[in-house]
């Protein structure tokens, strides 16, 4: 019954005019019949008419009753208020545009940021029962490490713990299409890889058990995106082959669109272990798994610990345990998590400042409308109705701001997604889904309360009768005080943000000033992977290095060329124990494999001895060059004052699947440090081994050019093509770009926070301007009288500026206190800058003062131009 009533009333709401017309007809009919009856009873026509009316009662009163009876009163009021609010905004388009713009900016930035927070940190992974997905590691004292093939196979046999357990190794191959060969990234995985993710193929099938065993026919599964781009979404793709490094692979399935399209991999193929890889020496696998249903993380950990104990005779690293971690946790690093929290906190502050600004403008508007409100109250409008009306106006503002904000969020995400893709995990889908829209709606509601409810309470609760008397004169002082407080709060919040941004910018500058240890200008780098079929032996690879360097150095514009495994700043893959003959102690060193041209091309100077030379080839005595850091460590640890000429032992990696082997090497030289990890990381202990003595398939070409590196690219490609027409080159980057990439983790949060801080400062300045401009407008009369009484323009300007300065100083003080409390959160993102760095904080204060001063100057100037005669004539 209730529902029916509500429906009837809602219907009535929209049929108001018709229902009114019907009622009119009924009344007329009623009166006519009453008149007829009256005349039948012997009354005159005139008397009958009067009698009919008398007996009917008050017609208008009845109509009103009738309307009340059938309508939803509050809804009509709301609609009227909303209409009125829109009309009032339309009368004041400047105010409307500024407020809606501010809210759109605030809500848009927040919505976009929330989309990132949600996708990276909040939303469960886009796979079924993601809490069952784990990473499994070996666990040496220093932190997680990969495992060996045999240990992995032991883990895989724990089928009561793992429903599926798979390796995951990045791989690259040449796609044979017409023209230049293309380099495509893929992954080598176990047959049950997709069971770990619980992903079903869109077409075809994924790997069957046994397809990762020796002798299985070569098959691949494609990503949806790769299927679209490479095969144009051909539905018959399952009848086709994918040719990788010249070898055809039967396409057995295509994944659905989604997360895997954001991964770098375009195809997956089974990892088939070579006999050489079946050992417990090479820690090269990082498996992911899915726990069996009902097995908790704690149970899995306990079982793995038990397994570790049972393997104590075959795994000789006594203090290495086994570790099981939730997959989701491993996807998001600490730095990323902190950066996202930081940016979200900052953007929330921007929204608060935007709200403060809008609230301030609404208050200012309310102050000038005091008289209207007072009049309406005097005419009998209830306080609730007045608040309702003001709220309705804010509602219009907020809804329009929210809609514009969602549009803004869409644009922001659209622009930011490609820039952020590399920094976010592949599972993060940045989109405006229902959750994000829900957040936007919440934000709009919060904004409505902040910008509508508070100011409307303030406006309506002022003493209305006194407002009637004084509204025409200056502003009410309590409203002005609130507005000044709001501006102080805005300035304070901006100062906090600017301080944070200043600290980050200083840190970033310091980071970028770090000496890489190599000359990074005019250097271009490329990746290549020598396929096993074409380069089956270490000798064949070594021949390629030599030939390619020779050919590259003949290219016009190329000064030097070299081949190495790995580049500066990108980290060194191999970590091995270096021992001295007869000494039990060891040093963990990073192992870098470089050719004879590496030091020269990157211009890393020698400290002593010699560098790697052409004579250090397969068959000649094994040598090693160490960096200054390692030399210092050797002298400290083993009192080896001159390491050159000494012999050390290191496990040197083998070619392809061949495991590393213990090798005695002679230290032939010491070179200056290059930064091998990031710029923020202290120099590592690095041993350089001649690439010719330990050839690798995954290599980098490093080329120093005479002019702009970009100009040499086509020559370089052609030179490589002449050596091997089937070998594709990838990751074409100048060393300057490599450096840029290595500081991206610091750069992104810095610029994001910087942008937010800039917006916040501008908004605070706008708030300051608004309050001062409003005060000047309201006090024109007072200023006019002062000037008529002899005040100079300077006095008037000073008075306005004094007011600005007091607000700024208070804001700075509060803001600095806030910064002291909050910048600690930045600590882990700062490089060699204290969280309370005085220079950065001072710069922040100066910036805020400058922006604030500029904002104050305009109204102060306007105050000075008040013409006393005009003002007094108008208002006197």
């Amino acid at each position: 019954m209730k529902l029916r009533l509500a429906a009837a009333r809602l219907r009535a709401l929209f049929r108001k005019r018709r229902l009114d017309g019907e009622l009119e007809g009924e009344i007329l009919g009623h009166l006519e019949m009453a008149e007829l009856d009256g005349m039948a009873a012997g009354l005159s026509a005139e008397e009958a008419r009067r009698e009919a009316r008398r007996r009917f009662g008050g017609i208008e009163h009845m109509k009103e009753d009738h309307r009340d009876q059938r309508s939803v009163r509050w809804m009509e009021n709301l609609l009227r208020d909303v209409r009125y609010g829109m009309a009032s905004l339309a009368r004041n388009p400047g105010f409307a545009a500024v407020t809606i713009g501010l809210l759109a900016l605030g809500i848009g930035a927040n919505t976009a940021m929330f989309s990132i927070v949600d996708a990276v940190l909040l939303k469960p992974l886009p796979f079924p029962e993601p809490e069952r997905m784990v990473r499994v590691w070996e666990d040496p004292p220093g932190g997680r490490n990969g495992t060996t093939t045999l240990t992995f196979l032991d883990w895989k046999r724990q089928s009561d713990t793992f429903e599926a357990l798979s390796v995951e190794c990045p791989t690259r191959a040449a796609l044979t299409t017409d023209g230049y060969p293309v380099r495509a990234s893929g992954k080598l995985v176990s047959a049950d890889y997709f069971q770990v993710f619980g992903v079903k193929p869109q077409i075809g099938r994924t790997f069957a058990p046994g397809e990762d065993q020796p002798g299985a026919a070569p098959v691949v599964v494609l990503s949806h995106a790769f299927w679209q781009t490479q095969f144009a979404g051909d539905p018959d793709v399952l009848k086709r082959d994918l040719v990788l490094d010249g070898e055809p692979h039967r396409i057995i399935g295509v994944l659905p669109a989604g997360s895997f399209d954001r991964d770098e991999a375009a195809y997956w193929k089974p990892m088939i272990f070579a006999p050489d890889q079946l050992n417990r020496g090479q820690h090269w696998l990082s498996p992911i798994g899915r726990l069996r249903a009902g097995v908790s993380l704690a149970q899995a950990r306990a079982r793995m610990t038990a397994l570790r104990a049972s393997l104590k005779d075959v795994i000789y690293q006594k203090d290495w345990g086994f570790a099981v971690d939730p997959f989701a946790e491993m996807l998001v690093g600490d730095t990323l998590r902190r950066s996202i929290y930081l940016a979200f906190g900052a953007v929330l502050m921007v929204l608060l400042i935007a709200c403060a600004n809008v609230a301030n403008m609404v208050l200012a508007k309310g102050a000038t409308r005091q008289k209207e409100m007072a009049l309406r109250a005097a005419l009998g409008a209830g306080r609730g109705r007045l608040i309702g009306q003001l709220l309705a106006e804010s509602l219009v503002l907020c809804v329009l701001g929210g809609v514009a904000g969602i549009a803004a969020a869409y644009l922001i995400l659209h622009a930011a997604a490609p820039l952020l893709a590399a920094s976010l995990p592949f599972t993060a889908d940045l989109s405006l889904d229902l959750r994000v829209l829900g957040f936007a709606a919440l934000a709009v509601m919060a904004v409505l309360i902040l910008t509508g409810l508070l100011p409307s309470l303030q406006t309506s609760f002022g003493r209305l009768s006194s407002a009637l008397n004084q509204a025409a004169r200056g502003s009410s002082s309590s409203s002005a005080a609130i507005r000044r407080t709001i501006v102080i709060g805005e300035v304070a919040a901006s100062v906090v943000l600017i301080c944070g941004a200043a600290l980050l910018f200083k840190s970033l500058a310091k980071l970028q000033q770090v000496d890489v240890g190599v000359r990074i200008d005019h250097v271009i780098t490329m990746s290549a992977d020598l396929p096993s079929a074409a380069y089956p032996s270490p000798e064949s690879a070594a021949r390629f290095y030599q030939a390619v360097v020779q050919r590259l150095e003949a290219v016009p514009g190329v000064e030097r060329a070299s081949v190495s495994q790995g580049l500066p700043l990108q980290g060194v893959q191999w970590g091995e124990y270096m021992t001295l003959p007869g000494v039990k102690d060891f040093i963990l060193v990073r192992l870098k494999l470089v050719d004879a041209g590496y030091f020269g091309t990157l211009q890393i100077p020698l400290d002593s001895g010699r560098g790697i030379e052409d004579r250090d080839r397969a068959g000649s005595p094994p040598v090693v060059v160490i960096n200054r850091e390692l030399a210092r460590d050797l002298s400290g640890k083993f009192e080896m004052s001159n390491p050159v000429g000494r012999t050390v032992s290191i496990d040197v990696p083998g070619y392809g699947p061949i495991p590393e082997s213990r090798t005695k090497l002679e230290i032939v030289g010491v070179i200056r440090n290059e930064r091998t990890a990031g710029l923020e990381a202290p120099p590592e202990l690095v041993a350089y081994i001649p690439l010719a003595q330990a050839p690798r398939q995954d290599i980098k070409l490093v080329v120093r050019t005479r002019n702009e590196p970009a100009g040499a690219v086509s020559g370089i490609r052609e030179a490589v093509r002449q050596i091997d027409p089937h070998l594709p080159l990838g990751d074409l980057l100048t060393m300057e770009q490599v450096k840029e990439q290595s500081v991206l983790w610091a750069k992104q949060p810095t610029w994001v926070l910087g942008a937010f801080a800039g917006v916040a400062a501008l908004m605070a300045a706008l708030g300051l301007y608004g309050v001062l401009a409003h005060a000047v407008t309201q006090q024109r009369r007072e200023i006019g009288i002062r000037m008529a009484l002899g005040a100079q323009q300077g006095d008037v300007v000073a008075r306005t500026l004094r007011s600005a300065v007091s607000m700024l100083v208070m804001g700075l003080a509060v803001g600095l206190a806030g910064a002291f409390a909050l910048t600690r959160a930045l600590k882990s993102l700062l490089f060699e800058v204290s969280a309370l760095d005085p220079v950065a904080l001072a710069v922040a204060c100066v910036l805020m003062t400058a922006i604030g001063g500029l904002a104050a100057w305009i109204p102060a100037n306007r105050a000075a131009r008040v013409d006393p005669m005009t003002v007094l004539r108008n208002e006197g």
Partner: protein
Amino acid sequence: MAVNMSEQKTDVPYGTLDLLILKTLDTMGPMHGYRIARRIEQVAENLVRLNQGSIYPALIRLEEQGWIRTKWGTSETGRKVKFYSLTRAGAKQLGVEVANWERATALVARFLGAES
């Protein structure tokens, strides 16, 4: 003290107009607003003072509740007017209202009896 039954006209007792309309429609079948008003006045033998117009808000209320329904028809003067009739729910409601009324009057009568 007895209920005032003097010649003086009283207002329609508060809350009873709905009952009077439902009962009228129950007895007389479909009719339009004027006839309903007249009928109530006639039955009350001019004892109550009824603003005839006040039945229209009551009618819309009853219609919203689903107790009466309307149909367009033509009045004696040839004008298009609404004819109101009782729905099944309305007939049931009439029973409820009559019972309520009887309970209420019995209660009041009992109080008055006890006091006197």
